[in-house]
């Protein structure tokens, strides 16, 4: 319990340091937030334009797609606020220039520090309009959900974050051997973006692939379906099992990577 308290204190400290660093260029800070909000609005405009021409995408109406879109962006923001940039970009750079050494000797769990060293406060601010969008989607859907459905939604959101953390960690760990993993990171970014569309847009093999093999459905589709009351309980179990297994594998792979690390600093 004492250790947990220490890590909470450390996390708060990392948040403060990140805020100070990012607020150093204030116009830049606010412009980035503006840009991110604009991006979301424009993507929304894109969906609106699509739904001008079509009533529904498979089983998904516009209001339901709005919920899916808001859910995807909530997960996406939570990921980029916390571990994504740290693992995808900062960790490979630390390995490349040998600066990981200085982190290794600190009296703190290296995976914790590598994942949360820099908290993206810009995305934290941009996250607020995303919550507004979720509220708007729920309003359009008439708040038609039960307490249990809401609980499942929350649990599946956390599960999606666990799944994404494991995938990002596996990709970042590869840089212990290659020193570069930005390319794989880019493919991962593009793949996860599939999650913001209803997977009904795919047919046959591709639909099977994105739901079960590369289970992108568990990022936003499964939580959204849980809230809409249309999620198959079997798939919910599959989603939880998948993420748990992947986290175990990712942590094991990270330990292997650490053993293979050889410093390059002078």
């Amino acid at each position: 319990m004492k250790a947990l308290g220490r890590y909470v204190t450390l996390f708060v400290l990392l948040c403060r340091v990140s805020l100070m660093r990012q607020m150093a260029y204030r116009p830049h800070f606010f412009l980035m937030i503006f840009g991110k909000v604009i991006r979301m609005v424009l993507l929304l405009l894109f969906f609106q334009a699509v739904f001008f021409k079509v009533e529904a995408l498979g089983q998904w109406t516009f209001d339901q797609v709005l919920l899916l879109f808001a859910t995807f962006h909530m997960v996406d923001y939570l990921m980029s606020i916390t571990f994504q940039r740290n693992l995808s970009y900062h960790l490979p750079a630390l390995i490349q220039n040998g600066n990981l050494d200085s982190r290794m000797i600190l009296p703190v769990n290296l995976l914790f520090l590598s994942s949360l060293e820099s908290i993206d406060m810009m995305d934290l601010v941009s996250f607020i309009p995303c919550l507004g969008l979720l509220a708007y989607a729920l309003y359009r859907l008439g708040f038609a959900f039960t307490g249990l459905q809401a609980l499942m939604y929350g649990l599946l959101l956390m599960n999606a974050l666990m799944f994404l953390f494991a995938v990002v960690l596996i990709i970042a760990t590869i840089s212990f051997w290659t020193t570069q993993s930005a390319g794989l990171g880019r493919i991962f970014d593009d793949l996860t973006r599939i999650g913001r569309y209803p997977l009904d847009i795919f047919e046959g093999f591709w639909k099977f692939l994105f739901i079960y093999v590369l289970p992108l459905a568990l990022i936003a589709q499964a939580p959204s379906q849980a809230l809409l009351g249309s999620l198959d309980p079997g798939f919910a179990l599959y989603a939880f099992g998948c993420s748990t297994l992947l986290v175990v594998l990712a942590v094991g792979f990270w330990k292997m990577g650490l053993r293979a690390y050889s410093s390059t600093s002078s």
Partner: protein
Amino acid sequence: MIRKALFIFRLVFLERSAYRVNFCLEIAGGILSILIVVCLWLAVYRFSGRAELGGFTLAEMITYLLGGGVINSFLLTTAENPETSQAIQEGSLSNLLIQPISPYWVWIFRDLAGKSFLGLIGLSGYAIIALFFTDLLVFCTDPLRLILFAVALTAAALLQYLIFEALNLLAFWIENTYGIRFTMRVILEVVGGAIIPLSFFPPMVQKAFVLLPFPYLVYFPMQIYLNKIDLAEILAQLARIAVWMAVLAALNAFLWRKGLSRYTAMGD
């Protein structure tokens, strides 16, 4: 000057191909994102049960998305010429100023070299994808249209350079220009017509968009390629692009002169 330009082109091509595997994976990522959008539109046409949406048949839409994807991913949004603002902020502009070629020319050649390199790689990648959609592609065979398409594309690359360079030159006054460039890139993707043809937007929104230079980046070249615009209109639009380029070039020159007069750099 041509020799210097060719030398810069060679240098940029060597730099860009340094991390080959990583680079190819990044390219694959860009192609993947376009494929996803293609799948989305295949579904939209399937579920709508209509042969034409927003004035585009399915074949025209797929061609638009793939063509627009090449232009957007490889020629436009990947090149924001950040070297300009970096040189100003870090003070390395001082070294560039004493060289026998203006830094402004170095930046423009480096930008065009980067775009050419990415464009060539992108084209080869998209050519592979196009093999899977041969039945759903529109091939332009009119040589005049192909020439006008190439002219519009070159104008788009220069226009994009001038827009971003003006933002980069603000580094003489502000400490970090990334926020402005990021916002502009986001706006360009939609207002330029990269992810959806502008004809899909409500008429009022379309009218507002055409007042800006952005539709000339993706939407206009693809309209030429898909034969959606007649010759007289193409020439009128090219004249408007020339005006935009003149205005932006003047703005760039003004910012460069004013910026240089207040530029200071310290260090050893």
